[in-house]
Structures are given as C-alpha cells and as structure tokens.
C-alpha cells in the first residue's frame, strides 16, 4: 500500500532530515511511527502528502509512483489520502458539517451524497450534536475528531495522522486513538506518528522508530523505548 525505498530528504544544505529510509506498509495495516521531535517524522509525513519532494529515493502510495506525478495531479493524490494534522487545520469560517463536507465537495460529490454521508461520519466520531458549531466553539479533542471525520469521509484507503494527539489532554487523546482504531477495523490503512509512549504501548501494533532521520527499529508488535 505504501512503499518507501531508500528515501532521502535534505533541506537546503542542512543535514539530512531523512536518510535512506525504506518502509513497506501493507494494506489495512496500522503502523505507528515514533521518534523524538526533529527525528524526521514530520518530514516523512510531508513527503507522503507531497508537500515536499524527496531528494532521492522512491515513494509509491496506492499505485501512484510519486516520481511520475505531475503538479496538476497532486490535488487528486491528496484526495485519495485521508490526512490528520497535529494542529487540526480546520477551516475557521466553516461549521463542523461544512468542514467535513468540504472534503467531499472538492472531490465532486453531489449534494445528495454529502447530505447523506456527513451526518453518518460525524456520528462515527461522536460529534453529531456539534454539527452546526464553528471550530472556535470546540475543545481540542473535538476539533481533532472533526479533522478525523474530514479525513475519513471520502473513505480513503490510507489515513495518515501526524501527531494527532500532540495538542490534546490525555482523555481527548484516547478518544482520538479509539476513533483511529475503529477506522482501521473498517479496513483503512493507518499511519500514525506520535511520541506518546502510553499510546504506543496500548496499541500493540507495528512500531517503526526513527532517530536522526534513520529507521532504527521496526517491530511487528512494538513498544516504545525512550531514546
């Protein structure tokens, strides 16, 4: 589903943020990527959403080889991947419903489809009663669940979540993790980056550890060791 082959990313003349990283993620897998701040997790994430281009190496997601990707096809790629950001990235001018609907609108869904799907997804993340609220009226955990709803509403095969619990208190963090597990059970490949030890240990999933831009361990059922 996701294949990285000896991917290196160097930002203008600095040390490599990622160095020869190879990673293979199967369909429907739940992979946790751990590492301290600055280890390269966010760079990996940006490479997958094509915010950044690798300096060298190969990235294939779904059946798309990023090397062959033209600029005009980038929006289409992004529509195929569900993305959750640490800072939520909700549209402040839009209500919860509109934020989620936006993901469908840009994909060209009909109004009927949107009307049908959005409430269902809000139900999945437990925000049915906040449908008409604006992001500023929500707590951090609620905002993150809106972001997840927006990421999954198009039923992507891949969901990548970059530190989705980073800005949340423990209770809300657990809500978010449970939603991600639920989505994974429905058959979505989930790639989660975090540096929260408790979460990693609880999940008991494959754990890939990155340190100084390199993959230092990859365990099928991993736990998090502080580095």
């Amino acid at each position, binding site marked *: 589903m996701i294949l990285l082959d000896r991917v290196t990313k160097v930002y203008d003349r600095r040390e490599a943020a990622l160095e020869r990283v190879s990673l293979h993620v199967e369909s429907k897998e739940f992979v946790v990527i751990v590492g301290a701040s600055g280890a390269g997790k966010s760079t990996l994430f940006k490479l997958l*959403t094509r915010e*950044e281009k690798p300096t060298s190496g190969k990235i294939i997601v779904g059946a798309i080889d990023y090397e062959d990707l033209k600029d005009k096809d980038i*929006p*289409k790629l992004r529509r195929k991947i569900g993305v959750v950001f640490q800072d939520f990235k909700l549209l402040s001018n839009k209500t919860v419903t509109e934020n989620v609907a936006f993901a469908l*609108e*840009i994909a*060209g869904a*009909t109004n009927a489809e949107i009307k049908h799907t959005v409430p269902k997804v809000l139900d999945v993340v437990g925000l049915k009663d906040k449908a008409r609220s604006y992001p500023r009226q929500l707590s951090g955990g609620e905002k993150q669940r809106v972001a997840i709803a927006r990421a999954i509403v198009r039923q992507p095969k891949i969901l990548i979540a970059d530190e989705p619990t980073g800005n949340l208190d423990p209770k809300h963090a657990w809500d978010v993790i449970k939603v991600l597990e639920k989505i994974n059970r429905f058959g979505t490949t989930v790639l989660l980056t975090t540096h929260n030890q408790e979460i990693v240990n609880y999940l008991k999933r494959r754990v890939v550890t990155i340190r100084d831009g390199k993959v230092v361990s990859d365990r099928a059922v991993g736990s998090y060791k502080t580095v």
Partner: protein
Amino acid sequence: MKDHRFITVERILKTGVVNFLRNIWISIAAIAMITITLTILLFAIVANATFANSITDLTSRIDVSVYLKDSVTEQQSNQLIADLKKVENVKSIEYVSKEQALKDFREDHANDPETLSAVSETDNTLPASLKVKPNDPNRLQTIKDFLDKKEIQALQSEPTSYSGERKEAIDSIAKATDFFRKAGIVGIIVFIIISMLIIFNTIRMAIFNRRDELIIMRLLGASPWYIKGPFVVETMMYGIMAAIVSIVIVWGLFAIASTLEVSSLLDIDFSRNYFSRHLWLIVIAQIGAGIIIGAASSAVATRRYLKLK
C-alpha cells in the same frame, strides 16, 4: 462531466457569497477602501470633463469684432463677409447691424439709465459690426493679416477688436488649453494606476488574513480553481458594491452642491449633467472595472499560497 462542472461552479459561487457574509467586517473594510478610491477617480473624471468644457466654452467666446463705418454700403459689407469667409481659420461670421447693436447695448445697460440716455434711435453712434469666430483662437494671425490690409481698413470705423482688452488674457488661456487637456488625461491615467494599486493591495491584505485557509484547502486536495474561485467571487462582490456606493456618493454630492451658491461659479450644473448623461457608461465602467480589478487582484494574490510543491 458537465453536471460535475455545474456543481463546481455553483459551489464556488455559493461559497463566495457565504464567505463574503461571514467575513462581513473585512468585506466592509475592503469595500470602503475601494469605494474611496473609485469615488476620487470618478470625481477626477467628471472634474476633467467639466474643466475641458469650461475651456471650450471660453475659447468659443473669443471672437474678432470688425466695426464698420456708417458709410459702408450693404454691398460692401456683403463683399467683406464673402472675402472673410475665404480666410483661413474663420469659422463663422455674424453681422450685427447698427439697430441690433443699439438693442444689445440697451439690454446690456438696462439698469443704467445714465448710460442709456447717451444713445437714442435718432442719434445712434454705435457702428455696425462683424463678429468673426475663429476655428482656433490660437491662430488669429491670418484673420488679423487680412483685416490689416489697407482697403479693408478703409471700411473700418475703429481698430479691429480682438475681444477688447482681454485679448492677452484670452490668448494665454487659449494657449494653456492644450496643456490642461493633456494634463487632465495624464492625471486620470495616474489616478487609474494608483486606484488599481490601492485596490490590489486591499484585496491582497484581505487574502493575507486568510492565507491559512488557502493552505489548508490545498493540503486537502482542492484544485487551485476550487480554492481561488470563491475568493474571486468575493472580491468581485467588493468591486460591484464599491462601484455602486461610489456612484451614489458622487451623484449625491453633485445634487447637494448644485443647490449651493457656488454652483454657478464652479459649473456644477455641467458636472451634474455630464454625470447624468453618462450615467450608464459610468455604471458599466465602474462595475466592470470593479469586477476586473477585483478578480485579477484576488487571482494574483492567491497564487503564492497555491503553489503545489
């Protein structure tokens, strides 16, 4: 596919209108800025037209008066008119008879009985005259040369009057005409450029405030036009509203000004008439400019946030 496009256009329009309303304070601020600029521009255009009209009006009043001796016969005066018509730069000739001159004099001095008593029908000392209007008041030399010929001078009761003592003043005004017309056009062009820069900057600021929104949409996979579209719609609405408000303001100010005492002095009536006569053109031009500048500015201003890496 066509259906899909229709949905997209509909959504872009709807989102544009909704954003306009939800960001109403930014919208009002932007409209206010654009309104001020368009109002100043509109004033400049009308003022320029009024000024040009005043100059045209003034120069059209310049004429050369040829006073004829009482002894000149009708045949001689007709001959003189015919000859004058052949002179270069002569636009028209008006014959003012002694009787007409007296009548005019009486009208001019209706409130001045003392001066009136100095002339009477039986003792009409006023000469008949020809009022020669030039095409170009800057080039009176050809007419002057003709009138200065000996045989023509013999018919004249007194030296030719180039609109009396004001000749020099009128001469210099006439010379300035051309300069001011050109300066007016240059001024308008400068105003248009400044207006465009101000409007562009206003819109750029409004979009800068919402750059995060653009970046988020881009990350979610919205196509550039789907992101840009609502902003373009929104800024077009700024342009349309600002155009309407500025026209109402200018129209209102002229309506008020024309009731004031100074109105005759400043030729407000002409300005007002000019404005009413060209109202539709102004409406179309202002709204058109508002739409085009608005759309172009937002398209350019959003571009930097929409770069796909």
